[in-house]
Structure formats: structure tokens, C-alpha cells
């Protein structure tokens, strides 16, 4: 294949730089994090090894994969919007509503065999999150409201709506813990390895990564979305309907985040409890940033942040280092990645300027 060689040559260099940047960002963030551990007069080597063990050691790795699952989906959600020039900060809320729809179908619709009930719940979760995010799209298209504001506001609304429901109308046992009924056995995602929490949801999330790739890089609609995101004026002049694309993308992105909430319920938690999304929605932003909105990048970003979540627990237990240090490291990773992207841009600009001078 001659064609691929041309492509390989010209893209390999660029991909290598961006991979290098992301890896360097993680390493630097880890080093700074460990310096903080030293400052706390704890053993950094012990902290580090216990974190790595907690994330990748035998018996622990499945937990990393469990935590990676929702991150894959919220990462897709953010990336999809970003490709269309939108900033979706509402994955957390979309997860809640996705979980709500899935629970309604999973716990209250009875008498279905699993092969109908499970897909039905997944579809319900997708539609729930999608509609929730579509509100943002509609507000943007018809009122010009900034999606940054509306998504954050919808997060609050979703969170308090769930609080209300699990304390009132949907509470499993009145007077008991504020949580909904468990989803029925026919609506649960089966575990893959006995004794772990790893379930089929993981593969559903990976499947979504493939679909995301197919949509964004190979489909005509995805091409339109990318053009709208990178240059709305050019899109306008070539007759692309940006408004329609915004509506489509907000629905799909919300759907992906909704699926994250839905899988978390159907595969791991079984019922909705207060604040069950625990920041998976917001971490999706970081996952997508590190992965530079690319499908493969999101897989690695989600793996990294899943590992941080799983490893942090272990570090706290084994090395007595508070797991908030992991939050610090995560934040450092984000700062490093954003910072290095700026550095790359500046370097690129200088290169172009030099080139222009040579030609002039």
C-alpha cells in the first residue's frame, strides 16, 4: 500500500510529538507529586510502588478497568463536543440523568428476559443523557446561550433532581438509606471475572470508542462536525448546516455520558445513591484533553486516570499518604498537558515565521 506510506510519514512525526508531550507531562507531574510526598516526610518510593501496585498489580488491575469504563465514555462525550467547537462541562449531570432513565427501565419494568432488558436499559440511559445535553444544544442554537454556562447549570439541576428523587418518590425503603431500588437481575451487566467488579460495560465502552472513531474520522457527518468546529465560517460558505450539527453532537455527546452513568448503575452500583457519579464526568474533561480528543488518546487517558483512582486508594492504605495527593498529581498532569500544548503552538508559530522570512 503506497498510499499509507505517504500518510504514515507525514503523520508519524506529529503523532510522536504529541505522544511524547503527554508522556512527559505525566512523568513530570508524578515527579512533582512525589516531591510533595517527600515534603510530607513520607517515603516517596513506597508511595509510588503502592500506587502502581494498586493500579496494575495482580488482583487490582480489574479495578483500574472498572474505573476506566465511565471515563472512556465521558471522555468521548467531551471530545465529541470539542470537535464541534463546543465545551461540554455537563457530563456529570448527563451521567445522573442517564442513570435515572436506566434505573426507571431497569427497576420498574419487569418480566423481560435479559437480552431485551439490558439493551433497553442502555438505550434508555443513552437517550436520557442525550436529551439532557440536547437542552444545551437547543439553548445554544435558538438563544445563543453559552454551552459552558448551561451545562454547568444543568449539572446542578440534575444533581438536585436525583437528590430529591432518592430521598422521596424513588426511595427504596421509606426511612432507610436514600437510594433507589436495585435494578432487576435481568437488567444487570454480568461480571467478567469472578470476585471482581469488572463487567461487560467495559467492552461496551470500548465499542463506543470504535464508533466514535468511525464517526469522527470516517463519516461524512463527522467531517462536517470537524469543519464546523475548526472553522465555522468555512462551514457556512460550503453550505454545512452548523445548527443541525450542534444539535446532533450535543445529543450524541450527552448520550455517551448518559451511557457512562447507566453502565455504572447496571454493572457496578446496582442502584442510584447520592453523588454516585463521584467526579467521573469532570475527569472526562482531563481524559479527553490528555488524549487530545482522539479515540486512541482517550483510551490511554482513561487508563491513566482509572489507574490514579484505583492506585490512590492503595497508596493511602499502604503508605499512609492521603489519596488527595493523587488529585494533586491529576491536576498537575492537566496543567502540564495544557502548558506543553501551548509551548508546541509557540514553537510551531516560530517555525512558520522563520519559513515566511526565508521565503520573503
Amino acid at each position: 500500500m503506497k498510499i499509507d506510506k505517504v500518510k504514515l510519514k507525514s503523520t508519524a512525526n506529529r503523532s510522536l510529538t504529541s505522544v511524547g508531550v503527554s508522556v512527559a507531562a505525566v512523568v513530570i507531574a508524578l515527579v512533582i507529586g512525589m516531591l510533595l510526598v517527600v515534603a510530607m516526610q513520607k517515603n516517596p518510593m513506597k508511595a509510588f510502588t503502592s500506587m502502581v501496585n494498586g493500579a496494575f498489580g495482580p488482583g487490582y488491575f480489574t479495578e483500574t478497568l472498572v474505573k476506566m469504563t465511565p471515563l472512556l465514555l465521558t471522555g468521548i462525550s467531551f471530545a465529541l463536543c470539542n470537535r464541534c467547537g463546543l465545551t461540554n462541562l455537563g457530563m456529570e449531570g448527563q451521567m445522573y440523568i442517564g442513570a435515572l432513565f436506566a434505573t426507571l427501565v431497569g427497576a420498574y419494568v419487569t418480566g423481560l428476559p435479559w437480552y431485551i432488558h439490558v439493551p433497553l436499559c442502555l438505550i434508555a440511559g443513552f437517550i436520557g443523557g442525550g436529551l439532557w445535553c440536547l437542552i444545551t444544544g437547543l439553548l445554544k442554537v435558538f438563544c445563543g446561550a453559552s454551552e459552558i454556562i448551561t451545562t454547568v447549570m444543568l449539572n446542578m439541576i440534575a444533581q438536585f433532581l436525583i437528590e430529591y428523587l432518592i430521598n422521596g418518590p424513588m426511595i427504596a425503603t421509606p426511612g432507610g438509606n436514600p437510594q433507589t431500588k436495585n435494578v432487576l437481575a435481568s437488567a444487570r451487566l454480568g461480571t467478567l471475572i469472578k470476585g471482581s467488579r469488572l463487567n461487560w460495560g467495559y467492552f461496551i465502552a470500548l465499542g463506543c470508542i470504535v464508533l466514535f472513531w468511525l464517526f469522527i474520522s470516517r463519516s461524512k457527518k463527522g467531517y462536517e462536525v470537524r469543519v464546523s468546529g475548526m472553522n465555522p465560517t468555512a462551514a457556512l460558505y460550503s453550505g454545512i448546516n452548523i445548527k443541525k450539527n450542534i444539535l446532533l453532537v450535543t445529543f450524541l455527546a450527552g448520550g455517551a455520558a448518559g451511557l457512562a452513568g447507566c453502565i455504572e448503575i447496571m454493572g457496578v452500583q446496582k442502584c442510584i445513591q447520592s453523588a454516585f457519579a463521584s467526579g467521573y464526568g469532570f475527569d472526562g474533561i482531563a481524559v479527553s484533553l490528555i488524549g487530545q480528543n482522539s479515540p486512541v488518546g482517550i483510551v490511554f487517558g482513561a487508563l491513566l486516570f482509572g489507574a490514579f483512582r484505583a492506585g490512590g486508594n492503595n497508596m493511602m492504605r499502604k503508605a499512609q499518604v492521603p489519596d488527595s495527593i493523587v488529585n494533586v498529581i491529576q491536576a498537575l498532569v492537566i496543567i502540564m498537558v495544557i502548558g506543553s500544548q501551548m509551548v508546541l503552538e509557540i514553537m510551531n508559530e516560530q517555525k512558520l515565521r522563520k519559513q515566511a522570512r526565508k521565503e520573503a
Partner: protein
Amino acid sequence: METKQNENIILEMRHIYKQFPGVLANADICLNVRAGEVHALLGENGAGKSTLMNQLCGLIKPTSGDIVIEGKVVHFNSARDAMAIGIGMVHQHFMLVPTMTVTENCLIGATDAGYLKLNYKQAAKRISELAEKYNLEIDPEAKVGDLAVGQRQRVEIIKALYRGAKILILDEPTSVLTPQETGELFNMIRSLTEKGFTVLFISHKLNEIKEICDRVTVLRLGRTEGTYNVAECTVNDLARLMVGRDVSFSIERKEGTEGEAMVQVRNLTLARDAHTNLLTDISFDVHAGEVFGIAGVDGNGQNELVECLTGAKHATSGTAMYEGKDLGKESTRQIMSSGVSHIPADRHKAGLILGMHLTENLILQDYYTPKFGKGALLDNRAIDTYASELIERFAIKTPSRYEYAGSLSGGNQQKVIVARELSRNPKFLIAMHPTRGLDVGAIEYIHGQIMKQRDDGAAVLLVSTELEEVMKLSDRIGVLFEGKLMGIVNPSETTVEEIGLMMGGTRLEDIRK
């Protein structure tokens, strides 16, 4: 007619150079302005007027050269420094906060605004006094958003006076005004200069300069052409000075292939609001095998005209018929899929997606057709073959077809757009500023390509502010001024002066009377 260096100079700019990355915007510009005069700064777009004025009001610093005010060399670090020394600028697009009152607007950035509490009452009183003294009728308590455009401009002038301006810079002040408002503005200017203020009047409208200004400095291509007494110049002189050199007509042109009228524009009108129009009653034909050029100073309706013909905006009234369709009403997709091609004015903003590969840029107009994939997916192999073909056929210099459009040189970027649009074999080609900012070689190439389309029987609408380009390529030329067509001329039967006059707002009938 060149004036001598004279007594009573209040402002002098000596040998100003301003270098932007890749562009020398001002080269050795000298300007001297006498106290109490109205001094015009005349030049086409890109002549360096705005750059020069931005240096004078402290927004940017000159690369070299001195600004001398009342005999002292000054250095401005910010707009505030310039204001403190008595330079007030009234921008073409007003810098006012619509939700605030006139007084509040005047206090923005003023030194005596007060720290914790605004000195509001005091300021309002001073504004009333100023208004009375200089015949600038205005209510200090009025909300700026409620005022008419002419009144807003008055607020800008008062704002400058309030801050102690002695030299007023008016940047294209009449471009947003009705003729009546223009008259009022001129009265204001006269009463200000009587009281000792100096006015720098930036414009390309020759009649206005003739009417209100004492002296004029002409800028062309970033250099000073000279300073003249307006009384000693005719409007025709000014036109020639602004446009400059004689225009050369050297391009190969096959004669007489002109066919039927491909596009018929009739009374095309686009409203800005209830009272003013962006385009008024535009009518012209573009025939097959003809280049119809649109000349005019930038911002006189060219953008709007092209937007109306490409579906980006819908005409308020009038029609633009093309193959039984009304371009003023159709959607962009419908227009572009029926044999119309468009080379947009700004290649970075509208023509290319800089962060995408060349391949992806080259299919922008046709990606949805079965040629590039039968179903919902794109056929990468077809796209690659197509892209390689175009890169070769249009001699686009690039390391590979997967290069980002943003990393090519300007000439090659423009070639990408030309390749994309011309390879569609358009029946109607709209080209706007197709060679802006390109070097000679690239210009020649693109001119050649456009002429080839014409010779092959396409109707071409060429919009450009480069008069030379329009005169060289066009079979007929229409001149736009404030959204109106001043006249249609044949380049072989017209003169630079005639076109210059039309660009400055005189109708063809009036010139040839």
C-alpha cells in the same frame, strides 16, 4: 503644489517605520499638521492609514521614527499616554458601552473619574458646558444605546474633548452617517477648528476632503505620496494620487466569446436595519465567457454582495437569477451544488480549515457527493487519489497531501482554494480578493487560472479592491460605493481618474455630463 514646511506645526510624525511580521505597513512616513487646520489622510485600503493612526494614539509603537508634539518628541506606552498629551481618537467603529449613559461613557478611562465614587454630577455638568460651547447638542443623561448613530459619534467627540484632546483624529467618520448627519458633523468640525482644535480627517471620499479639509497627505502602499493644499487640487488630482501609477493592461485575452447572460442581478437590496441599506438597488448581468469586475474601496458593500450571491445572506428585495434559481433566496448548499464556485475573500477565515489536511480541505465543497463515498462514510482512497491529482494539476508545493493547510505559504494556500473551486468546472465563479497578499508569481498564476475559466465559457464575478487587478482582468467593471453601483464601465474606454471618482462616490452619469 507641494507645500513647504511651515510655521505653527502642532504635530509631526518623522520617518515612521512600522514592521509587522512579514509586512512593512509603514515605510518612511512623514506627516506634519498645523494647529487649527483640518488635515486629511487619504489612501486606499492597506495604504497604512490605520497603522499610522494607531501609533499616534498609543495603541502600537513605531519600529522606528519620532512623533513630535508641539516641538517635543513623545513616546506613548499606552492609549492613556496619548490622551494625556491631548490626542483623542474617534474610531470608525464606536468604542461606547450602549447600556451606559453619555456621562458614564465619558468617564471610562478618564483621570478624574474618582476612585470609589464616580464624580458623576460634576462630570455631567462639564459635559453640558462642553456641549454648549462647541454646539454639540447632547443630553448627558441619555443612554447611548438609545441614541442614533450620528449622536453616538457626537458622544465620541465629546468623550475625547472631555479628556482634554487638542488634536482629534476622526477615522472614516462619515462612513456610518446619512448625508444630513454628515452635514452636521462638518459644522461641528468647523466650529471646533475655529476654537483652535486640530482635526485629522481619515477618509477615501474625495468630495468630503475637498469640502472640509485644508491640506491633505496622501498615503500609498505604506509610503507618503506627498502633502498638498486641498484648494489647489481638483477631485481628479486626488483620485489619481490615491490610486497612483498608471494601470497596465497586459494580459492575454481571447476576444469575443461572450455568451448569454448567465447571472442577472436586478434591484438587489439588503437592509441593515429599518432605515439604512447595506446594498441598494444593485443591477448588473454577468455573461458567460466574461469577467465582470467589482471595484471599490473595501467595506462599500462588496462582502454583502458576495454573501447575497452565495446564500450566506438572503436579499431583502430584488433578484439574482441564475439558471432559473434566485441566488438571493437559495441556501448555500443548493447554490454551490448547481455549478457555482466561490473563492472567499479571506483564505484563513473562510477559505481553508487550517488545522486540517490538504486532502480534507480539497473536498470541502463536494465531500457529500457519491464521488467521495457512497453511504455515510467517506471513501479515503477516492479522496487521496483526487487530492494527489489536484496537487499535481495546480502545482501546489507541499511535502505531502497530509500536510496541514496552516503550514503552507500564502500562495500555496490560495492555490489549494483555487484548485478546489476551479476543479468543479463552475459555470459561475465568484472570486473575491483572489490574490490579496500574494507575491507576483502566485498572482500571475491565479490570474491565468481565472482567465482560463473565462475563456472556457464560465461567467466570472471578480471582486477586488486592487484596481489594477480589476482593470487587467475584467471585460466590464462596476464600481460600488456605500452599497450602490456608481456605474458600469468598459476598462478600455475608461480612465483611472474616472474609476477613482466613482470609488469616491460620484455617479458615472455625473462624471460624463
